[in-house]
Structures are given as structure tokens and as C-alpha cells.
């Protein structure tokens, strides 16, 4: 079953076509990556999926298990409540709120307290608020930020900010999590632990992961499916091994000359090994 199906989505900005008739199907409970050179339209795709942009054409069907819903006409907050959460390429926390407050903002859509209930301080509201604090703590523990709940988001070290952003998006109880370059700016050690962490999200929480990533090592290590986008179009799709061997991918990343050279070289190597 596919949790997300994108059909013929096109997004234009004036004369520029950022996404051009893109198709994409993401199987439930998979780790799926979208890669492509800078400006290929990856982040635009995320923005279309989360409701910040409205594509001119096409449909985005989200099926959290209860039948498909078209996301194209929905507002971002409605899409979040359906079960899609995201993180940002350049971390976007609420800098002047504490870590635990950041996570509790993520819980917003799951809390039911009415205004009247809040003003009267009803027992149900107090209970819910206690649950929210516990849940936020639990999520902070899960991402490895135990005991840092009271620090301002702004004062956390970089790696912790990345984790906090993920905890905050987990608080919305997503079925599909969109990670926009989660290892940008990380050193190899941090990247390594992030790979393990993303796997845990899928294995322990059953969340489908959609990644945008530049770090090829991460993409190849973690993804089960990869789609390569260039100029807003899909140019390749398949398992990491298939994508790696695809000459169009190499061309997109390294240019036509490099692709030809690489093809010649591998041919030469092959003939050499035959002769040898």
C-alpha cells in the first residue's frame, strides 16, 4: 500500500517551472529519498505536500490507512492534523521558547481543551495538560534530549536543535515524516548516529520517512527507494543500487561530459578485465 501518491504535480513560479508533472509513490513504512542537484525542486515538492504551496496541476493523495485524501486544497494545519509532519533544511525552531515548549506546540492539534475549559481550569484540562507535559518529556527522551527540556531552543547545540526539531514534528503524531536534509552541517559521527536514529523512527514508531538529502552516503545507506529529480522532473527511480548505476543520474549530478567519461572508463575497465 502506498501512503502517498503524487500524480502529475506541476508548480510554477511566474515563468519558472519548479516541478514539472512529477509522479511519486511512497510505500507505507518505507524509508524513501528524493535526491537531485540544487534547485531541482525538492524543497518545493515538500512545500506542495505540506500545503504551503498549491500546485497548479496534479493531485497529492495521502492515505494514512483510512482511504486517500487529496491534499492539494488543504491548509498546512489541516494536513498536519491528517498525519504529515516535516523538518526544515535550515532548522526552524521557536527560538525563544524552551525545548519542552517547542514540543508542546507540536502537541497542539492533539489537545482538545476548549477556551471555556481553560478559563475554568476544569479537571479534564488539568489532566490533559499533565499528559502533554509527560508526552513532551517522553518525546525529548526518545530523541536523546532528556533533561534539556528547560533550555531555550536557541541555546541548544546544533545537533540537539536538529533532534528537537524532529521531536517537535513527532509530537504531531505523524504517519509520514518529511525530513529536509536532516544531516546538513553534521560531522561524520553525528551523521552516523542520525542514520541509526532515522531507522529507529521507522522501526519503532512505524513512521514512513521521506528524505531530501545531499549526503550520498546517508542516502545510499538508509534508503529503500530513491527518486532522482532534476529540473522538476523525475529522471530515475529505484533501489539505491539501481539509481547509482543510472547514467542519467550521473549526468544530472556531474554533467554530460563526466557521464560519458565515466561510461567509457567503465567500458574500458570491463574490456580490460575481459582481456586479462
Amino acid at each position, binding site marked *: 500500500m502506498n501512503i502517498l501518491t503524487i500524480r502529475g504535480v506541476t508548480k510554477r513560479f511566474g515563468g519558472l517551472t519548479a516541478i514539472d508533472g512529477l509522479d511519486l509513490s511512497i510505500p507505507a513504512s518505507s524509508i524513501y529519498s528524493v535526491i537531485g542537484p540544487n534547485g531541482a525542486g525538492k524543497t518545493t515538492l515538500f512545500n506542495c505536500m*505540506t500545503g*504551503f504551496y498549491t500546485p497548479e496541476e496534479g493531485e497529492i493523495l495521502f492515505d494514512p490507512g483510512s482511504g486517500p485524501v487529496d491534499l492539494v486544497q488543504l*491548509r*498546512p*494545519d489541516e494536513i*498536519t*492534523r491528517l498525519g504529515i*509532519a*516535516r523538518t*526544515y533544511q535550515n532548522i*526552524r*525552531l*521557536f*527560538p*525563544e*521558547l*524552551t525545548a519542552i*515548549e517547542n514540543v*508542546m*506546540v*507540536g*502537541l*497542539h*492539534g492533539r*489537545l482538545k*481543551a476548549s*477556551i471555556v475549559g*481553560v*478559563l475554568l*481550569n476544569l479537571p479534564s*484540562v488539568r489532566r490533559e*495538560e499533565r499528559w*502533554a507535559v509527560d508526552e513532551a518529556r517522553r518525546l525529548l527522551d526518545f530523541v536523546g534530549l532528556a533533561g534539556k527540556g528547560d533550555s*531555550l531552543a*536557541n*541555546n541548544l547545540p546544533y545537533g540537539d536543535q536538529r533532534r528537537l526539531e524532529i521531536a*517537535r514534528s513527532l*509530537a*504531531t503524531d505523524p504517519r509520514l515524516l518529511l525530513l529536509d536534509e536532516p544531516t546538513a552541517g553534521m560531522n561524520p559521527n553525528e551523521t552516523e548516529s542520525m542514520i541509526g536514529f532515522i531507522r529507529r523512527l521507522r522501526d519503532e514508531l512505524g513512521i514512513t520517512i521521506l528524505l531530501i538529502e545531499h549526503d550520498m552516503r546517508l542516502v545510499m545507506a538508509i534508503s529503500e527507494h530513491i527518486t532522482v529529480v532534476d529540473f522538476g522532473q523525475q529522471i530515475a527511480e529505484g533501489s539505491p543500487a539501481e539509481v547509482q548505476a543510472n547514467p542519467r543520474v550521473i549526468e544530472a549530478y556531474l554533467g554530460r561530459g563526466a557521464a560519458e567519461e565515466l561510461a567509457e572508463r567503465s567500458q574500458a575497465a570491463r574490456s580490460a578485465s575481459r582481456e586479462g
Partner: protein
Amino acid sequence: MPRSIQGRLGAAAASGVYGGLALLLAALVGMFEQFAKRPILAPLAGRGEPVTLDLVLLLGGLLVIGYLVARRSAGPDSIAVAKPVPELAAGLAGAAAGLVLALYVLTASRIDLTGILINAKPFLVDFLSLGGGAGPAGLARPVLAGLLLALAGAGLALLPDRWRPGVNRGLMAVVLLGTLQSVLTRQVDWVTQSRRAGGLVAAVVDWVYANKGVAPRGVLAILALALALSVGVRPLRAGLERRFRRLPADQQVRSARLLRGLRVTLLLCLLMWLPLGLGTYPSDVMDTVGIYILMGLGLNIVVGFAGLLDLGYVAFYAIGAYTVAVLTSPASGIGLGFWAALPVALLVSIGFGIVLGIPVLKTHGDYLAIITLGFGEIIRILAISDALKPWLGGARGIQLIPAALRIPLRRFPLVGTMDPQLQQEMYYPILAAVGLALYLAWRLRGSRYGRAWMALREDEEVAEAMGINLVGTKLFAFATGATMAGLGGALFASKVQTIFPASFNLLISINILVLIIVGGMGSIPGVFVGALALVALPELLREFSDFRLLLYGVVLVIMMLNRPEGLWPTAIARRELSSKEAPSA
């Protein structure tokens, strides 16, 4: 590194020049002349003239220059920046400031500046030269005074940390008490006249104050008290805290709760007693402060919590006031009572809050500020317009609005006979309204709605991505803010009984915004501190009210530069500040 030290000394001299220019500016707007009538310090042994506020400000200004420059030059030497001897830097700055004043004396005594600067009167030459006149003495005296006072300021700045805060607070208390003498003595007189108790208070006040200004013994007593408090209280408090920690956990919780309950009860009793105990004029001031607090709490939700910069907040105040006025004044013929009109006024305010909210949903920051500014003006112009004159009375406004509360003449066994005036009666509904608004702000702040507002303030797009409905959240903020302002307006109308469009100008919006900024954005206690500092003080000290706007400007600039988080910041802002300072120290 001698060059760098020279640079530093140059910077110190420049600070002195700026300080001198600031003093000169204060002189040229006529501040000193106004303040010359208020005695602060009584003369020694009762002879001669008291030291008045103008001299205190001038000399105090020079002292502060020295203090600030010395504080900057003090502290450990870092490798990158060599620091000159603090006393040297301070003295240089003080002399530079004095030189600025001397140059003015030199100029003004030879050229008549009154044509350009209305306040450049001969009085100023005499005053700024410290009585030296136009001759050489008039040039030497300010420079010398600057040098000596700045050195004194440096001495103060270099006191050990254990003593410095106490001395500083003591000096400030002396100036403040001196300034408030007329208010305090009038008050004490009133209390002792109307009641038998209060003899002790009167005796203390008589002892501290001379006829005009704080008596020398009073100065010493205040300084000693401030020192004793700041030096003595800390170990006392630490000891108490240690003992508290040693208690078992459940007892800690219980005693903390008991203590808090006791404190709240005492505070409430005090607040209930205040208007009856203080008389009509202070009650009037407290009413005004209360209405400002009410509106501050409302605007704090809109600007401080949700980050929606609203410059037309006065509109809702006007709407509340006019709704009550129209519904209750006999002139309109509807003739409802205040309490029947109040819910209507609140509903109308909420309605307008939403009506304003809808068109500005898509705008942020500057654009939002401009639109709301326009909205405020539209409401004021509608109120003054000829089209609505039959209902709103045009520029003449609406008269004969009934009071919200009338307390009948009462005889109490201990307190005596009580015949409260309108200002005292209105205090109670205002107090109740402030209590209500405080409760609302406090409950909402800790709820998911408050968090949604703060998320909105921090990053609107991400807030939406977290499942927050922007439309609902923004409209709720506008509506809550409008309710509190509408309530404030309704109480204002009932208190003054006659309202004019002129009472609802842009300045009210600015005042409320400034008090929020001074108190600390988003901080609820900050609203109270800000209102007391910016509304109550100028109200009590009439000669300041001429310079109210100038002082607002100065206070705002100083606050933004030195204390952007406000006088009473939110707990988080306070912590952030300390954690920012920690690594640099």
C-alpha cells in the same frame, strides 16, 4: 599597549561629551527650570536654601557619567583590550562633560540665544556655571565640578560588590524620597487627620524630612538602612532557604502554599483598603493606573504573546467607552444602567476586534502596524464626525454617564464614618476588572492557546505546520485584547462621566505599548511595573508630565540599549540573559 589606552581614553572623553550634551539638552528643553521648585535635600543645620531637584539632576548626571565610564573601564584586563585606570577615564569624561556645559555658558553669556532656543534664559547661564556667571569662574566651575563628581562616581563604581548595590539603592532612595516629599507628607497629613492611627508614621516622616527636602539625618538613615538591607538580608535569606530545604518534601509544598495564600490575602486586603486609606487624589491616580494595567494586559496578549504589533489599540478602548456612554447617557434616551450596558460594550468590542482581525490576517509586522494605526484613527475620526454627531455628540462628546458603583454613606465601628467619592468607588470595579484580566491572561498563557500564540510570534509558517490554525489563533488574540480594552473603556467612561473623541488619540496606544516594552514584552508582572513607572510616577509628579514624552523617548532608548528584556522580564528571558552573560564573564 599605550595606543589602545589612548583610544580608550578618547572613548571615555567622548562619553563625557555625550553625557554633557544630554545634560545640556535637558537644560534647553526647560527641565531644570521646572525642577528648580522641588526641594530634595534640606540644608545642613537648617540654614540656607535646600538643594533642589534641578541641581541634584545636574550634579547627579555628572556623577553618573563618572560611574558609567569607570564601570566600563573596570573589570579584568583582557588580552585584546588594554584598559586605562578607571579613575583617570572617569575624571576625563567628567571634565569633558563639564567642558560642554562651560562652552554653553561661554556662548550664551555673549550671544542672546533666546530667539532660537526659548529656554536659553539667563537663569541657565547662572545655573550651568554653578553660580560662577559669565566670567572665568563660570568656565572653571562646571569643568571642576564635572571632574570631581565623576571621580566620586568612579569611587562609587569601584566599591566592592558587597557594598555597591546597597550604596546605589540608598542614593536612589534619597533622591526618590526627596522627590516624593510633597506627595508623601500630604498623604500622611490626610491619614493622621482622618484617623487616630498613623501617629507613628507621621513621626517617622517628620523625622526624615525637614521643612523642605530630606533632612541630613534622614539621608544618613536611608543610606544606612539601604546598606543594612542589601548586606544583611542576603545571609538571612540564605539561612531561611537552607532551613526550608531541610523540611520534608510534603511539608515544603504545604508551607509554600500557606505562605503564598497568606501573601495573596494580605495583598488583597491592602488593595481593598488603599482608596479609603489614601483619599481621593491617589485613588484617582490608581484608577488611571488600573485602566492602563487592564489595557496593558490586553495589548500584552496581542503584541507580547502573539507578536501582532497593534498600534491602533486605542480603538477598542474608544469603542468600549462610547458603547457604554451611548447606552447609559440620558442624552441618547436609551438609559440602561452601567452593568446592563457593560456586556453589550464587551460584545461590540469583540466584534470590532474580529472585524479588524479579518482584513489583517495575511499581513505581518510593519504592514500590520500601519493597518491597525489606520484603524485607530478611523474610529477616532468617526467619533468626532458630523455624520455620527446625533449619536456620539461629535467633538462635544457624551455627558452624564452614570457611575458603575455607588457606595452609600457608612459608619464602621473601628474605621469611622465613610463617605467615598466617585474616584474611590470606581477603584473597586477597576480592581475587579484587573483581577479578571490577570486571571484570563494567566490561564491562557499556560494553555495550548497561549503556546499557539507564542509559536505564532516566533515563526508563523512553522506554527501553521505544527497544526495551528492561524486564522482562529490570530482572531482569538485580537478578540481577547479587544475585550480587555473595551472593558477598560467602559470603566473609563463611567469614571470620568463625560467622554470626548480627544480622549482617544494615538498617544494612548503608544503609551500602552511603551509600558509593555518597559515592563518586558510578554511578561504579565511587567505590565504592572511598566504602568506604575510610566503612568503613576508622572501623574504624581506634575512637573514631569510636561516632559512625559521626552522621558518616554529617553527611557525607551535606554531600555532598548541596556535592558531589552524589560524591567520585569519573563522567567525565560531572564534565564537567557544570564546564560548569555555567563560565558563572557
